[in-house]
């Protein structure tokens, strides 16, 4: 009897609880996404593909987000069994690598756990993820965002940075304020000129256990920025300064670091222009003195040159040199109006993008521990990178579309890839991207690419054919051929075929073939792929 009563009570309370629970759940959303990339590797010594003892490798993750009104919580489960070629082997195993909860109450937002954020352009702080590249320096700690008055946005955080399946040794903390004068002062709201000001301070702490050197345990960095707007014109400028921060990547020098970034932009109907300049000096800023390459970066120093996506244009990709570089970039976007000589029937789009990046000027320092001295007014004499990109987009008629591209690149392989003694590569690239729409559902797209250079591996040619049936199917085949290689045995074909099926937000792609290292863009998405030969399977889903 007593037992029956207990069960009855339990069941009753369960049901009552359930209705309450149901109410909560009715306002709760559970959503997420999933991605799996797996590859079966065939041994292929001709292209230098390393032997994979596991034969098959896979990277996968799923994010699950729960939202209820002003409350959000999320986790990410990641699995590397074992990590795909090209990913850092410290990504081995599976586990929950990201979990957080956020609550927003009017002007205050509180996040505990993992978070991504950035101050200004990121010169002193940016934590972000690029899953396809295996980059993730998520913070683990506490973040507050506070909006006390209209136009005043404050942020503050403290935490440690993610390092594969663990966190780095250093503690990072920072504050940032952004002030939109047109929102703060009502009298400015209707003015044509608008000003947004910002400032940030970030510092890191890491214990000094070096037996010889006296290393700073706390290193601070600050930045100030302005965003000025007048009609179609705008100026976005930021200056950052970092106190002495001896580390492995700067050869343990005690010199300060600084960076300046300025962008002027103009936008009008059918026309866009930008002019950017950047100078970086000793701006590696990491939460571990001994970290290198992609690890534990606190800040983000964007590269100026155009982001390339065509296969042969990604053979020589420039990367920012955080120890020192200076450069400029200019770009133009313009559309020749329809029914004009250059515009033709549908209008013609043109974009031009050019950059020049050099070393910074340095001279020996008076004191050895400072490393070197520099002069703002003098230009460094080492060419790091030059490029010129001209792209013409043309719709010929209802069926045919064309994108024609010419690219010149000069690439300092010695500096960018750390290969001393290698001379600069000068490459001329031509690309024709042609789309033929057979009918409303069926299309064929072809890419013909050629890269000519006397240096490095000499000439390349590439042809790609893609057939799509909207909205579900795509088939593609491409061949990259290093036909001009001086070494006859290295004149290799990289032949590849792929098949994909997309339904709503689910996508499955199956590929087979040889892949040269680089950024691969097929069937609508781009992903970094290392040199390999074999079968690839990729599944993405949003739910």
């Amino acid at each position, binding site marked *: 009897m007593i*037992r029956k009563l207990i*069960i009855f009570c339990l*069941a009753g309370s*369960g049901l009552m609880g359930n209705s309450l*629970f*149901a109410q909560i*759940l*009715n306002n709760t959303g559970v*959503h997420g996404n999933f991605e799996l990339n797996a590859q079966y590797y065939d041994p292929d010594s001709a292209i230098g593909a390393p032997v994979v003892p596991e034969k098959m490798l896979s990277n996968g993750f799923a*994010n699950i*987000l729960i939202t209820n009104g002003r409350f959000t919580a999320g986790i990410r489960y990641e699995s590397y069994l074992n990590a795909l070629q090209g990913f850092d082997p410290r990504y081995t195993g599976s586990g929950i690598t990201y979990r957080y909860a956020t609550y*927003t109450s009017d002007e205050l937002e509180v996040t505990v756990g993992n978070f*991504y*954020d*950035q101050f200004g352009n*990121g010169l002193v702080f*940016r934590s*972000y993820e690029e899953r396809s590249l295996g980059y993730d320096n998520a913070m683990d700690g506490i973040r507050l965002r506070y909006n006390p008055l209209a136009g005043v*946005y404050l942020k503050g955080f403290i935490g440690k940075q993610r390092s594969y399946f663990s966190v780095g040794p250093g503690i990072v903390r920072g504050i940032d304020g952004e002030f*939109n004068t*047109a929102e703060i002062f009502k009298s400015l709201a209707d003015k044509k000129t*608008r000003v*947004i000001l910002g400032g940030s301070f970030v510092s890191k702490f890491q214990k000094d256990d070096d037996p010889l050197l006296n290393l700073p345990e706390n290193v601070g960095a600050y930045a100030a920025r302005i965003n000025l707007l007048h009609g179609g014109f*705008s100026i*976005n400028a930021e200056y950052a300064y970092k106190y002495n921060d001896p580390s492995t990547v700067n050869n343990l020098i005690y010199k300060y670091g600084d960076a300046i970034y300025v*962008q002027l*932009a*103009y*936008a009008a*109907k*059918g*026309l*866009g222009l*930008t002019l950017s300049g950047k100078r970086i000096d000793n701006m590696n800023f990491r939460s571990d003195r001994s970290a290198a390459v992609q690890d534990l970066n606190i800040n*983000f120093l964007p*590269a100026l040159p155009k982001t390339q*996506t065509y296969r042969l244009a990604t053979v020589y990709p420039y990367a920012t040199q955080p120890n020192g570089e200076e450069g400029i970039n200019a770009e133009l*976007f*313009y559309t020749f109006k329809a029914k004009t000589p250059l515009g033709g029937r549908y209008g013609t*789009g043109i974009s031009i993008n050019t950059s020049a990046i050099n070393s910074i000027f340095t001279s020996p320092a008076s004191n050895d521990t400072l490393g070197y001295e520099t002069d703002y007014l003098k230009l460094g004499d080492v060419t790091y990178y030059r490029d010129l990109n001209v792209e013409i987009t043309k719709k010929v008629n209802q069926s045919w579309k064309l994108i024609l591209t010419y690219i010149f690149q000069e690439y300092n392989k010695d500096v960018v890839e750390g290969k001393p003694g290698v001379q600069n590569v000068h490459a001329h690239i031509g690309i024709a991207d042609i789309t033929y*729409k057979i009918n*409303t559902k*069926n299309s064929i797209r072809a890419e013909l690419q050629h890269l000519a250079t006397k240096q490095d591996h000499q000439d390349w040619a590439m042809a790609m054919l893609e057939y*799509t*049936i*909207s*909205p579900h199917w*795509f088939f593609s085949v491409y061949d990259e051929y290093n036909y001009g290689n001086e070494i006859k045995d290295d004149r290799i074909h990289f032949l590849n075929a792929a098949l994909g099926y997309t339904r*709503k*937000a689910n*996508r499955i792609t199956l590929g087979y073939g040889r892949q040269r290292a680089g950024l691969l*863009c097929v*069937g*609508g*998405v*781009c992903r970094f792929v290392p040199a390999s030969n074999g079968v690839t399977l990729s599944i*993405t*889903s*949003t*739910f």
Partner: protein
Amino acid sequence: MKNVFLLISASLLLIFISQPLWAQEKGQKIPSIKVKTLNGQMFDTDSIVNDGKPIIISFWATWCKPCVTELNAIAENYAEWQEQTGVRLVAISIDDARTAGSVKPFASGKNWEYDIYLDTNGDFKRAMNVNTVPHTFLISSSREVISQHTTFAPGDEEKLFEEVKKAAGK
């Protein structure tokens, strides 16, 4: 007795578990996330509204060729789409600090008439569970996701317009 207890526990558990599944029948609501306008102003995604008419939210980037192809394809007929259905397209750029400054000149150069916002930190992208771009959502007048599609192939824009017309009751 033990069995009865087990049975009750199991059925209660089942009810609990099945609840979220029922809740899932409704599409995801547009969350409230801070992004920026092309003029650098803070903007809450709560303010993406269209007076009871459908909304397209398209995640893109200046360096993403298929994204630009999709937005160009829609741009050709956007005026007509708007006239017929009142649909509004909101383009969310996921360009980071490297290219975010070029988004406004880029879009102006293309003559796009879309409302464009910058999700430089990827907050909105994460909240909408976007894996890769292009990723396009169709949003109902009650701000719930009706349908979504990733990648772009020529012709996808026509299927999207069919869905827009249905959502607008045309």
